[in-house]
């Protein structure tokens, strides 16, 4: 098998495998840029996956499922927003509670849907002439609609954050909410918006798994992808383009696993499955150690904002 025959499908598979992580990471990215850390991504993805699946199966239309997953993800994130922004609860514990709750909730709701096929999953839609470009075509332009949307999303988020006024405000929100408050911006309201929006994106990430990647519903089908997304935001240094590259890198590790056997490398399937997690740890350590702890973390990340705090 030539390098091309091996590499191109691998890279294409990387994109697909990385897309759910990308959505979740983008969601977490904007949440953290607003200054709130949401560790409930794993639970949100699962809730998004199951609700998207349920609605898609019932209605026969995957786009309704997509919408449902966004609403479900946003709704669950709203709990986190209420607890951490209005009630000033500890963000770490609240996020963990969300993961546990979301995992349980999705398992509960999805029980009846295990093993049921979805009639109309998101299917591959080659993008006309773009799909025919040698090398690049098959890697990026022969996928389903949600992948294409994710490309646009990265672009939109990048432009929003760095080239528009509300985006500037978003970045400032996570750095110095007191400054934003003193300037008359409603810190609470804005944070609510971004946390819920982040949740909606997380839901989409989950829906991608159940409506395109698998497509099916299985309990705990995210298998830690939500957590990888959280880690990804850190070593993407809170930047959308780096998040994209990181997501595809992870997709690659995932996809590589299956393909190693083709190369004649025999490895226990368990070790192959370990790779993404080990990889996450190693990269995280590498990136943080290299910056000697002086990461460009949003300055006020994880802290509750209280205007009258003396």
């Amino acid at each position, binding site marked *: 098998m030539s390098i091309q025959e091996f590499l191109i499908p691998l890279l294409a598979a990387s994109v697909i495998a990385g897309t759910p992580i990308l959505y979740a990471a983008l969601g977490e990215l904007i949440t953290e840029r607003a200054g709130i850390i949401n*560790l409930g991504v794993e*639970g949100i993805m699962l809730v998004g996956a199951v609700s998207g699946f349920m609605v898609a199966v019932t209605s026969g239309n995957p786009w309704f499922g997509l919408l449902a997953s966004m609403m479900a993800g946003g709704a669950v994130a709203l*709990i986190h927003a*209420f*607890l951490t922004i209005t*009630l*000033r*609860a*500890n963000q*770490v*514990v*609240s996020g*963990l*509670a*969300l993961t*546990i*709750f*979301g*995992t*349980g*909730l999705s*398992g*509960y*709701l999805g*029980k009846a849907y295990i093993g049921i096929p979805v009639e109309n999953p998101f299917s591959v839609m080659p993008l006309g002439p773009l799909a025919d470009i040698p090398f690049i075509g098959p890697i990026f332009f022969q996928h389903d609609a949600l992948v294409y949307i994710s490309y646009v999303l990265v672009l939109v988020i990048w432009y929003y954050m760095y080239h528009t006024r509300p985006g500037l405000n978003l970045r400032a929100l996570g750095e110095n909410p007191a400054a934003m408050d003193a300037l008359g911006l409603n810190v609470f309201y804005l944070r609510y918006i971004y946390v819920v929006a982040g949740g909606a994106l997380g839901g989409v990430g989950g829906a991608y798994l159940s409506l395109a990647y698998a497509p099916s519903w299985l*309990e705990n089908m995210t*298998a*830690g992808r939500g*957590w*990888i997304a*959280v*880690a990804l935001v*850190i070593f993407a240094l809170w930047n959308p383009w780096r998040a994209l590259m990181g997501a595809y890198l992870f997709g690659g590790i995932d996809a590589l696993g299956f393909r190693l056997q083709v190369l004649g490398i025999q490895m*226990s399937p*368990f*070790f192959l*499955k*370990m790779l993404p*997690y*080990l990889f*996450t*740890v190693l990269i*995280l*350590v590498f990136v*943080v*150690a290299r910056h*000697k*702890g002086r990461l460009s973390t949003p300055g006020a990340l994880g802290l509750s904002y*209280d205007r*009258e*705090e003396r």
Partner: protein
Amino acid sequence: MNRLTFKLEKRLTPSPVMVFIIPLISVLLALLLGGIFLVLTGEEPLTIYLLMFEDSLGSKYGLTETMVKAIPLMLTSLGVSLAFKMKLWNIGAEGQLYMGAMAATWLPLTFPYLPVYLMLPGMVALGMIAGGLWALLTAIPRAIWKVNEIITTLMLNYVAILWVDFLVYGPWRDPNGSNFPITASFVEAARLPGLGNSRIHTGLFFALALAVILAIVFKYSRWGYSINVIGSSERAARYAGMNIKRNILLVMFLSGAISGLAGMAEVSGIIGKLQHGISPGYGYTAIIVAWLSKLNPLAILIVSILFGALQVGGYAVQLVGVPATVATMLQGAILFFVLGGEVFTNYRVKLFSEKGEDLSK
């Protein structure tokens, strides 16, 4: 039209009354919310709750099972609480439990003819060391480079579980086990004795002893004092001359060791072998238990029993077609309400009328 607004005003000191009442109310509210949810999904909440209660706390068998489930929960929660005291977010109790179980298993599989007075202590030691080392792997980057331990401990959970899978599907698989992913059953000498004829094993004493030790350490000991300071303000601790790095390593190691002990106790006291899925998520539930108990070791014992009951109840309702995940949901909901309720201990809610009058005076 009278418009009421409420405002949160920070209290000078947390209200002691609230500290006690809030967890209670939270549990009740969570059950209430769960009840509403069950109704919405077409179930009968009262029947289900009654069934859960009966089968977990209302019968001798139920109580036994509840205690059985409570023991690993107690241990992992104690381990987690030690780390949390120093604001080290050890989410890896699950993996540390698995590694402890694995290491403990190695001894009877390799040296099945050891006498019990060497076998059991050996298993305890191996279990604790393995759990401790697994935690240490994440403690080192945390101590030296401030790498976030939440993610690293969590990732290692998945690795540990897969590692055990590898062993029980592969080299450690019982040749006489009809191809199930299990090891050979442990010899008698490798089994923790039970209380009387019940399934409740000596792991319970480990838990009780550790709870007492930790309670004393936290409240009265030198080391407990320094952990308190470091967890409360790392800057002040450094200023005071305390060795932060060393304490991070030590605390994480011990935290992992205690969870490793939980793993050893599970395979030795209950399961009798190593297999796929030895824990239904004790390491994660431990986090809820520890937080609910406000990191108080004695409270942890009690809350563990409650959550053990929840778990057993969850299994029980499966028989009437309700997924066991209802227990997980309730656990999450309880934590939500506790978190939300904490605001009342730290803040006072004041009501204002439209004119700006303080109505709560």
